[in-house]
């Protein structure tokens, strides 16, 4: 029953979010702000995580395929496909759920408990749309770019680790990442990213928007936002994989 209650409330919130904006110029400015806050400010963490994970994926692949029958370029190929298919979309999605999700839920939650949302409503502003829509648009637009950066940096990280430790030569690795490349895998990763961006921003906003109580409840709602965003990301990973790759 609780699920249907929350789902219904979430859908009603989304109808408010996607209603006609009061003044599109203001929304445009807000979206630019959110692009920086949610997108540009996440580039650093995405680069750091991607370079190390790309390195680890390459090393683990190399140590688990130490068989003379396996050509060494397979290390590059496997690293590339792992990064594109799962790491740069889903893992980065989970990381962003932690970073962006908690930030959105606590920001909106604090606005709720300090009556800033009531102040917006009293002025006649559609607070749900004003606060949430720019975040959704910014993430849906920018997260695919983060995924592309993550793919590039992850593959590069793999090359650094592989060549520096000597588990694979530079030629083999580069041949591997170019071998049997399926461009649709990138499209698949980007489609997943768009879904995840929507899940992270809307679910986190929902938990922030309806928070009641004080600082403790804002913290709890922030945790809930991250947990439920992660669960939904993993659920949609399965659904989208079945739909897009079957």
């Amino acid at each position, binding site marked *: 029953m609780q699920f249907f209650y929350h789902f219904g409330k979430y859908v009603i919130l989304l109808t*408010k979010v996607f209603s006609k904006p*009061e*003044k599109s110029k*203001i929304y445009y400015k807000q979206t630019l702000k959110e692009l920086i806050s949610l997108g540009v400010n996440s580039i650093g963490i995405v680069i750091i995580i991607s370079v190390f994970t790309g390195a680890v994926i390459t090393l683990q692949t190399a140590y688990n395929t130490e068989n003379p029958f396996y050509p060494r370029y397979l290390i590059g190929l496997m690293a590339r496909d792992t990064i594109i298919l799962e790491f740069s979309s889903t893992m980065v999605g989970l990381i962003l759920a932690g970073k962006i999700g908690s930030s959105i839920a606590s920001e909106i939650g*604090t606005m709720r408990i*300090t*009556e*800033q949302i*009531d*102040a917006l*409503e*009293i*002025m*006649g*502003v*559609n607070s749900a749309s004003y606060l949430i829509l720019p975040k959704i648009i910014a993430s849906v637009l920018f997260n695919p770019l983060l995924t592309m950066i993550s793919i590039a940096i992850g593959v590069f990280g793999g090359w650094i680790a592989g060549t520096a430790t000597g588990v694979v030569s530079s030629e083999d690795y580069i041949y591997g990442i170019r071998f049997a490349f399926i461009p649709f895998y990138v499209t698949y990763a980007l489609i997943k990213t768009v879904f995840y961006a929507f899940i992270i921003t809307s679910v986190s906003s929902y938990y922030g928007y309806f928070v009641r109580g004080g600082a403790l409840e804002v913290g709890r709602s922030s945790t809930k936002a991250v947990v439920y965003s992660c669960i939904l990301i993993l659920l949609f990973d399965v659904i989208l994989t079945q739909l897009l790759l079957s």
Partner: protein
Amino acid sequence: MIKVDHIWKSFNHQTVLKDISVEFEKGKTNLIIGQSGSGKTVLLKSIVGLLDIDKGEVKYDDVVYSKLDFREKKEIRKKIGMLFQGSALFDSSTVEENVIYPLDMFTNMSYEEKRERANFCLNRVNILNANHLYPSEISGGMQKRVAIARAIVLNPEYLFCDEPDSGLDPITTLRINNLIKEITEEFNTITIINTHDMNSVMEFGEKIIFIHIGQIWWEGTNKDILHSENEKLNDFVFANHMAKRLKQI
């Protein structure tokens, strides 16, 4: 005129407002007083539409506001200014940005015109040289005054104040009260103030309603209150020994 007509409000089967009917007139400072938990804030939030009422009607100049949908309410809300208990300033915007915000949202003024109007309102509430400070960098009294400036920037017809004196010292309280009274007369607004500050009640209560356990227990002016025989009201207004002695005198 704002007319509250037999309104009821409950939360989880607990009735907080019971059959409240009252009228608030233009150019007057109307006070809602009562103990904590008596239903003052619920009444104020029901009048402004932040809470949906269970029964009854709230009318703004013959428009049944409580029955309007969000889009229809928006037109009336543009005429409402509200001062919240905790000021409710946008904490990541500066003082000036806070005051400019309603102008940004609902007018087509140029940036210079908006700044001029914001500075006029800030000067009106005696906030000088604080335009670029954030709410966390100014005192509680200043925050209230900035919130008043934001509330009046669109020339509201209705001004609502939820405990404007909470957390302020007596001198700042007096300043804020005088400011609200002046603005009410200057802008000819219908001002409704929620308070349990007795200085405010005695100083400028042109119309006072006393709420007790969700009902209107007494209605009158600040002059009437001194001669009231209402036991509950007297218990509330003259709560301490000194006040009781003064009443006897």
